[in-house]
């Protein structure tokens, strides 16, 4: 489904953030990408979201080189990915309801559909009573649950979570990971970039370890080992 072929990313000439990265992810997999801060995890997620272009190599989604997509093609591709970030990246001038509704509106969904789906997803992430709150009125855990709700509302093919538990306490972290596991069980591919040892060890799923921009391990049922 996703293919990284000899991908290198350099922000300056002397140092590569990622070098000669090769891996693929199959449909329905749950893959954790682990590494210390600065290892290259975020660069990798940015390459997958086509926020950055690789210096060398290619990233394919099925048979499409995502970095050769037109603006319109890129928009369509991004609708297939639900992204979750450590800093939540919510629209601060929109309420909880509107943040989710916006993701649906952007894909051209009808108002009736939005009015039906948003309350349902709010119930799923336990934010019904906060529907008309703004992001700055939410706790970290609530923000991340909202971020997950927004990511899954359009039933994407992939969930890409970059350090989703980075700003959360252990309880909220567990809750977020449990939601991601459930999403994966329903057939969505999940790619989780993290440096949270406990979470990775609990998951017992595929683990790709990155160190200094290189993949050093790729274990089918891995543990956090750096």
């Amino acid at each position: 489904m996703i293919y990284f072929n000899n991908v290198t990313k350099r922000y300056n000439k002397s140092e590569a953030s990622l070098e000669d990265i090769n891996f693929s992810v199959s449909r329905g997999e749950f893959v954790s990408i682990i590494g210390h801060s600065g290892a290259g995890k975020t660069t990798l997620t940015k390459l997958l979201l086509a926020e950055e272009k690789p210096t060398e190599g290619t990233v394919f989604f099925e048979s499409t080189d995502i970095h050769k997509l037109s603006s319109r093609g890129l928009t369509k591709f991004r609708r297939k990915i639900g992204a979750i970030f450590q800093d939540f990246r919510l629209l601060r001038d929109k309420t909880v309801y509107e943040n989710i509704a916006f993701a649906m509106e952007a894909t051209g969904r009808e108002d009736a559909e939005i009015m039906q789906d948003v309350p349902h997803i709010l119930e799923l992430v336990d934010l019904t009573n906060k529907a008309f709150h703004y992001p700055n009125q939410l706790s970290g855990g609530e923000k991340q649950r909202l971020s997950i709700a927004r990511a899954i509302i359009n039933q994407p093919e992939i969930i890409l979570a970059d350090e989703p538990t980075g700003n959360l306490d252990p309880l909220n972290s567990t809750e977020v990971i449990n939601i991601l596991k459930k999403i994966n069980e329903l057939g969505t591919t999940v790619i989780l970039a993290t440096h949270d040892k406990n979470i990775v060890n609990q998951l017992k799923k595929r683990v790709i370890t990155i160190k200094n921009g290189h993949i050093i391990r790729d274990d089918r049922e891995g543990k956090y080992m750096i």
Partner: protein
Amino acid sequence: MLFTHVKRIVRTGFHNFIRNGFTSVASILVMTITLFVITSLVFIQASLSASLNNIESKVDITVYFIPGSLESDIQNVQSSIEKLPEVKEVIYTSQTEALADFKSKHANDYLTLQALDELNANPLGATLQIKAQDLSQYDSIAKYFSGTNNVLSSGALSIISKIDYNQNKAVINKLNSIINGANKLGLGISLILIFISVLITFNTMRLIIFMSRDEIAVMRLVGAGSKYIQGPFIVSGILVGFSASILTILLFFPVSIWLGNNMSSFLGINLFQYFKSNFFQLFIIMLSSGVLLGGISSALAAMRYLRK
């Protein structure tokens, strides 16, 4: 689908405009200054052109005929001159009218009137007052009286006593160059001021969108298309322009009343009357400038963050 998209873009644009209260007010004020400058320049141009028309209307070439010249000869000269394309108007003053004018002008000058009476004859000749279409054409009109052109016969020339163009030539030329200069300077200053104002407005809109760059990035990540992201900014920009044009027109009411009451003689025009009689055109100028400026500035500024 298209209708739903447009409806959502307009609704979001309205929401953003209301929610970003402080920045919306700030950009309305900046835009108001721009529209105020543009409208002031329209007023200045109107005042300048009224003053120049007033001065221009006072300039003419007067042809004095020898006293006793036949009226039919003078009328021949008049009709020849009227045929010239440069000539706007020729006013004939007969000998009798010239004397009556002179007497009324010197009604209080007893000595002059007495001297005139003692002459027992009308010493004043008939005159033709020639107005040109344009100030610069007086020189070419004067050349018709030099005899080098075949417009006037030598007989017609012989009844002309004098032409006052040569005495006024220096003044007319000077005035001509001042008027041309004033027009060019006015246009130049107008363009510079408009350019500066537009630049300030454009940068204000850019600043607002710069503040929204993170939001734009998020919108892109959730799969919003460029037009869908750009649209609400354009709508907000148009609303800023619309509000600013209303504010400007409201501001111009008291300003033009004050200028009309106090500065009419200095400006050569009653600006309140001008404002009232040209209200619709002025409002359209303000509205279109505001809406275009707001819309285009927002579109260009948002585009910058949508290139990725």
